[in-house]
Every structure is written in C-alpha cells, then in structure tokens.
C-alpha cells in the first residue's frame, strides 16, 4: 500500500515541506559514510542506523501491486498544512461495501527531512468501527506509537510500542492486547544492528500468553544493501522469508520474494515489477506467483485534473477466480 498512489496521502499545496509523517515514507538506502573534514579512520568506523526491523522486507513488498476489488472512490481534502481529511467509498461484491471517513493530523515538530511529529491518523466506517494510531517522537532517539482498532463497540486490537534508535542499532518493544484481568497478551521485542555499512543483522522475540498457555517464538533477520539492490532473509521457527529488491533503472524496479511456513507446510514465490513513467504520470505494477496468481495494477494521474485513476485485475488460475477493480482518487 505504501507504493500506491491511492493510499499515499498527498502533500498540501501550501506546505513548504512534504507532509509525510514518519512511518509513511519509503525506506531509504543508507547514506555513505561522511568524508571531508573527518579523519579517514573515524569515517570508516561510522555505521549508519539500520532503520526499523519491519522495514527489512518492505522495499520488495512495495513493488508488488495491491489488489483492489470492485469500485473505490477516495476524496482527499487538505484543510491546512497540519490537517487533512479523506472520504472513501467502496462498492464490491466480494468485500464489505461502505463508507469510511479518515483524518490525519501532523504536528509542528520535525525529527528529520520528512519526519514530523506528533501524527494522529484515524478512520471510522458507517458501523462505527474505528482504526486509530498516534505516533510521537518522545525524545531525539525514542519514538512511541499507540494503535487501536475496534469493531463497532468492541475493542479488537490495542497496541503500544516504543522504539529506540541508537547510532548503529535500533531496538523496539511492543505490547499487543495486554489484558491484566485475563492474564493474556503479546510482547514483541526487536533488535537490529548494523554490522557493516551495508549489512544489518538482528532478531525478534515474541512472547504470547493466554490463560493456561504461553509460547515463545524467535526469528533472526539479515539484510544486505547494495548500490541498487537489497536482499533480506528472515529465519524463524515459524518459517523462512527471503526477499530481493533490485532497481534496474530509473523506470524499472523488480522484487522477488520466497515464503515458506512450517506451520502450514507450504511455500510460495512471488515475482513482481514496477514500471514508472513520470513523463506520462503512469505507474504499472505486475506480479506472478507460484500459486498460479497473476495480477497487475495501473495508476495514472489525469493531469491537469486533480484525479488519479487505478485499474486492477487479478487472476487465480488454480481456483479459477478473477477479480478486477477500479478506483478514482481526487486530491
């Protein structure tokens, strides 16, 4: 969804800086070590921050198209450089149809070139189900996030996490659905360390507790970043995930992903590509997977109108199912 024109919040016209809060931007390649006045020996020892743990496979996943079913109409309205609202209407025969109202507030604090805080994002549908997130930069190195999700009047998910960004490492801890009365909850801890300027390694520990039962899962992750490619590998008790992202040119990006789960005794490979033609205001994404699924999305900005058109189609040969979608986004 991050790479989709339909999902990305557009920047307001009056703001001098792009209105992209932290967590909604793309993962950047690590900057080269500083040179110049710094001594060469110190420059070699400087390791960049590896970024967030969840972003290791994100570069590859952003290449794959997002399936749109039915008809979707999205209207974004920027009320000020801090506040914008959006109206979303979806009509579909396979998913729930309905209307959603969403808002986003971005504060005045700035943590980086495209990172502003605090950020409050939320949307509510016609039945009263709410999705909300609050992202705040507590200090220069500590970022916190609180998220809620309700289904009508029932809380489905409540989550709080904190992330600490060191010079060359990132550590985070998250509490999901903690329930003191029911003695249940999930605790997730991440740690990602830059070993070299291009190699980052880390791990994740998940502790899940339910009444009368508890379990622990651990996984290791490694990510290698080249000049125009990113390879990542996650090994865990639940399975293996490997991804490879390659920027072939300014127009073409490719991604390959392998997922193998020991729980479901299944594996799959997905190959996707993204074509960007800025002169034509066009973006095309295609995907083919070993599950006999072929899909593509076409996004076209209808300049000079403030409209974006999205066409999507997915075909599952194995299940003999075909889904197509059409979307219009008004900025």
């Amino acid at each position: 969804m991050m790479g989709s024109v339909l999902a990305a919040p557009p920047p307001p016209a009056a703001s001098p800086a792009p209105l992209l809060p932290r967590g909604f931007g793309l993962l950047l390649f690590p900057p080269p070590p500083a040179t110049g006045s710094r001594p060469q020996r110190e420059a070699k020892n400087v390791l960049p921050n590896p970024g967030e743990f969840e972003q290791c496979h994100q570069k590859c996943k952003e290449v794959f198209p997002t399936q749109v079913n039915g008809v979707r109409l999205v209207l974004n309205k920027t009320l000020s450089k801090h506040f914008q609202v959006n109206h979303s209407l979806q009509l579909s025969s396979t998913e729930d149809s309905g209307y959603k109202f969403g808002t986003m507030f971005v504060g005045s604090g700035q943590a980086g070139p495209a990172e502003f805080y605090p950020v409050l994002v939320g949307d509510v549908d016609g039945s009263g189900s709410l999705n909300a997130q609050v992202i705040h930069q507590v200090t220069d190195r500590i970022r916190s996030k609180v998220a809620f999700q309700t289904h009508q009047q029932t809380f489905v998910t409540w989550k709080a996490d904190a992330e600490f960004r060191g010079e060359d490492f990132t550590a985070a801890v998250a509490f999901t659905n903690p329930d003191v009365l029911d003695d249940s909850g999930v605790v997730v801890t991440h740690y990602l360390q830059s070993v070299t300027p291009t190699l980052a390694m880390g791990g994740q520990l998940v502790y899940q507790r339910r009444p009368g039962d508890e379990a622990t899962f651990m996984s290791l992750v490694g990510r290698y970043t080249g000049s125009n490619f990113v390879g990542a590998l996650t090994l865990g008790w639940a399975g293996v995930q490997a991804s490879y992202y390659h920027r072939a040119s300014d127009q073409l990006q490719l991604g390959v992903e392998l997922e193998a789960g020991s729980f479901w005794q299944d594996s799959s490979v997905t190959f996707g590509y993204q074509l960007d033609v800025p002169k034509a205001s066009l973006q095309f994404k295609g995907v083919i997977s070993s599950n006999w699924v072929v899909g593509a999305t076409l996004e076209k900005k209808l300049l000079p109108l403030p409209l974006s058109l999205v066409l999507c189609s997915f075909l599952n040969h194995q299940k003999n199912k075909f889904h197509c979608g059409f979307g219009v986004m008004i900025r």
Partner: protein
Amino acid sequence: MMSGSNAKGSFPSRVSEWISSTYRFATDRNDFRRNLLVNLGLFAAGVWVARNLSDFDLMSPQPVT
C-alpha cells in the same frame, strides 16, 4: 534395423515421459520438501532475471525500420 527403429520410435516417447514427469514434479503440491525445492529454484531464477534486466527504457526512441 528393427532395434534401431524401436530406439528411434521410443526416443520421442521417452522425451514426452520425461517432460510429463518433470511437470508432475514441479506442480505436485502434496510434498512440502518438493515444493520448497522448486520454489528455491524459482527464487534463484527470479533473482537472476532481476539482476540482468538493466537495459530497459520505455521512453527511448523507437528504432527506424
């Protein structure tokens, strides 16, 4: 002569049998290890394709024929 013609006649059938057995091997989803092996090969092939697709320019002028 008879053995030679039999050998020639059986060669296309052996090729078709080999193709059929390869197709069954690649599409049999009941064996997890077999699926994983096939998908590992597909992943390696995908990485090779991704690394070798570099000369792609949609806006380049078309060659004059």
